[in-house]
């Protein structure tokens, strides 16, 4: 059903110099501590990371609960902040689809799409034959997801020992990891322009709308990068 050779190959991506484990671990430790302070039980915290596995979404959920937002408002706020997962999925799945593979694998494993797993897959897919990419992907996804769940538990248990300075240190790790991975991914004109324009327009649109700035800024930046890249070479 799942080719264990490729699954394990993907799973091992959490080791080595490109490992996302520290970055993922740092942020989900912070989430575990946050959920404990919000009054979640340890089971509920595990359940939350298990089912959502998207950091900004969990943060928005926590914020919304603090201000006592309604369920529909929580749904909209989370959907907005995690809507980036849509273009990410569309930009990944066609690389993994193969006629010999069952469709349920795609609908189930799309749950693993998050920034770190996505960037790792984008960085490595060319080395794997197309038919086996989905199993490789499921390996990466299972590994990163496990790190996230495990770290949530650690953060929950250790929350009393995490003082303000440690939490600040933990909070910078994830953005630094993503910045470095994005720099490493800038191999074509189109991607380089997308990254640079996105990093400028996203914060610029913040002054117009803090909620929509990522989607607006991202959409306009990506579209400009696409047209410029098509015209002046990929």
């Amino acid at each position, binding site marked *: 059903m799942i080719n264990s050779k490729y699954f394990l190959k993907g799973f091992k991506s959490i080791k080595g*110099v*490109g*490992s*996302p484990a*520290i*970055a993922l671990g*740092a942020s989900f430790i912070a989430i575990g501590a946050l959920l404990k302070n919000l009054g979640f039980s340890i089971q*509920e915290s595990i*359940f*939350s990371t298990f*089912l*959502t596995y998207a950091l900004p979404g*969990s*943060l928005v959920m926590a914020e919304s609960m603090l201000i006592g937002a309604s*369920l529909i408002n*929580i749904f909209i706020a*989370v*959907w907005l902040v995690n809507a*980036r*997962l*849509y*273009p*990410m*999925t*569309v*930009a*990944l*799945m066609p690389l993994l689809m193969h006629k010999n593979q069952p469709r349920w694998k*795609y609908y189930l494993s*799309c*749950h693993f*799409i998050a*920034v770190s797993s996505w960037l790792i897959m984008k960085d490595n897919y060319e080395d794997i034959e197309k038919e086996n990419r989905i199993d490789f992907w499921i390996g990466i996804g299972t590994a990163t997801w496990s790190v996230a769940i495990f770290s949530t538990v650690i953060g929950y248990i250790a929350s009393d020992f995490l003082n303000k*300075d440690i939490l*600040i*240190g933990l909070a*910078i*790790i*994830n*953005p*630094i990891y*993503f*910045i*470095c991975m994005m*720099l490493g991914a800038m191999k074509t004109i189109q*991607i380089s322009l*997308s*990254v640079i324009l*996105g990093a400028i327009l*996203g*914060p610029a649109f*913040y002054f117009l709308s*803090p909620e929509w*700035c*990522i*989607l607006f800024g*991202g*959409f306009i930046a*990506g579209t400009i990068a*696409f047209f410029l890249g098509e015209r002046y070479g990929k």
Partner: protein
Amino acid sequence: MASNIIIVIFVTSLATYLSRFLGVVSAEKIKETSKMFRWFNCLAYSTLAALIARIVIFPLGSLSEIDYLIRFIVVILSIFVFYLTNKNLVYPTLFSAIMLSLFSTYL
């Protein structure tokens, strides 16, 4: 409250899975060699860059207590470490956390 938390978790995960699910539905009709695919690829990278830039420039939570100049210096130094260590991802991430903790303690 306990059942309430469970419902909130379900609502959050549903709102998150929706984008992933619709992404797979759309992906079934898009070839990896098409222009449409390249456009979505640009959108994915630009949206991610926008998200990360927003986290660093307009952070929520504990990072917002740090002066933006310090955040800026830590980001630049970490990028420097990234290239210095031949694109190793572990060193710059560890370095950034230690730097920021030291800065926030002693500055």
